[in-house]
């Protein structure tokens, strides 16, 4: 058992970080993310400042807080989609530094702002990502069945319900078996059955990956062994 090392600037009282224990994964391929004095400003509005943390494989972190507190922004910064106003985020895979360009190989990311192609079917969207990422040896049928999308695989996405789209987004984000999984409100638009499918997947992968979830749902926060909360 090792503890997650998450530190923040004590002067910043708006952000509380809870430390719990995480299990060390059995495989030796370890990813770790280190953030130093991370701040984000939009014009004069400061979203957050001076956040420090280190997360490694086996850690699962929930980012919680009210709407507009900066949960999604922090997630985007960690995913390299947005740049911090100040501070740095470093990524290491087996102690080798990973740059921003290489990061997409290791990252699975879903958010309400991401949309697969509505004009393509579910299966075509999956095949597009498999081809683009040069993924081999993947059992697409099994994944489609696991996410209860097999029956709908040949339907264009514009005819999918929002819950089906959400399940497809998660399926697509894990096709390349990424060591980092970042989920912004993964349970949104899902019924209880859809949530169960996603939560069961996250539970099964918790110790093998870094999982970061931005959420307001208590149920989702409970899946994680650490949290960053914005007040």
């Amino acid at each position, binding site marked *: 058992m090792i503890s997650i090392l998450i530190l923040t600037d004590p002067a910043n009282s708006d952000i509380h970080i809870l430390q719990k224990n995480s299990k060390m994964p059995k495989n030796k391929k370890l990813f770790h993310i280190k953030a130093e004095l991370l701040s984000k400003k939009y014009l004069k509005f400061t979203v957050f400042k001076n956040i420090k943390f280190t997360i490694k494989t086996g850690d699962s972190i929930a980012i919680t807080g009210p709407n507009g507190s900066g949960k999604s922004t922090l997630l985007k910064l960690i995913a390299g989609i947005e740049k911090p106003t100040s501070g740095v985020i470093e990524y290491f895979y087996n102690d080798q530094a990973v740059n921003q360009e290489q990061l997409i190989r290791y990252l699975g*990311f879903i958010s309400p702002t991401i949309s697969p192609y509505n004009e393509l079917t579910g299966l075509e969207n999956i095949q597009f990502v498999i*081809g683009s990422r040069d993924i081999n040896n993947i059992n697409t049928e099994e994944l489609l069945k696991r996410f209860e999308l097999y029956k709908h695989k040949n339907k264009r996405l514009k005819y999918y319900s929002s819950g089906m789209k959400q399940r497809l987004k998660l399926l697509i984000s894990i096709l390349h078996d990424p060591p980092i999984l970042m989920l912004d409100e993964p349970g949104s638009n899902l019924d209880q059955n859809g949530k169960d499918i996603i939560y069961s997947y996250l539970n099964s992968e918790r110790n093998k990956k870094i999982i970061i979830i931005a959420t307001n749902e208590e149920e989702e926060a409970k899946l994680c062994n650490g949290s960053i909360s914005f007040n």
Partner: protein
Amino acid sequence: MEASASIKSVVSNLKKEFTIEFRNRFAVNVALSFAAISTIAISLALGGIPISPKMKAVLFWIIMFFSAMNGLSHIFTREEEEGTSLFLRLNVTPESILSSKLIFNIIIFLLLQIIITPLYIFFLQVEIKSIIPFLLTLFTGGLSLASITTILAAIVAKAGGKGSLFTIISFPLVLPVLWIVINSTFISLDKQNYYQYNNLLFLLAFSATIIAVSFLLFKYIWLEE
């Protein structure tokens, strides 16, 4: 990324572009409608009055230019409008995105030329005196216009997808290309067996420069917040 993986990624992206295009046919429909309507309108307006080869070359490339501007700009703005740009960015490298979109625009533009040129020849009773130089001008001119529109479409899409900006910002880049292709087309309509290798070489070199600069700049344009 290995070369085979990069090629696979470009092919996969290209397949996606063509599937989407042939399901909603936006670029082709817009460009073809524009070209067909303007060709017929010019033909009717002229009402059989003969015009000089120079004028025929000018009108032909004006139609091709505006068809390209209307149809091909959509390649990147569509990603922004439909919210798929982040999905694309997270799954495909910038180099593969640019390569596939560039190849897509070149193929679509050449297809448009294949359809529009016979229409134009028929409605305006164009006589081509040097067929091979004419075809080579079409190809090299098409290559130049498609490469310019691809990188400019990426810039415009990131500038808030303001499609109306597209024709305006493309004008300074397109001007030398239009100048050369009009001249070269005029010569192939007017003179027999007259090859304008300098013009064709200029167009090829211009396209190569635009493509090289696009590959250098695209990553910064695409990854801009």
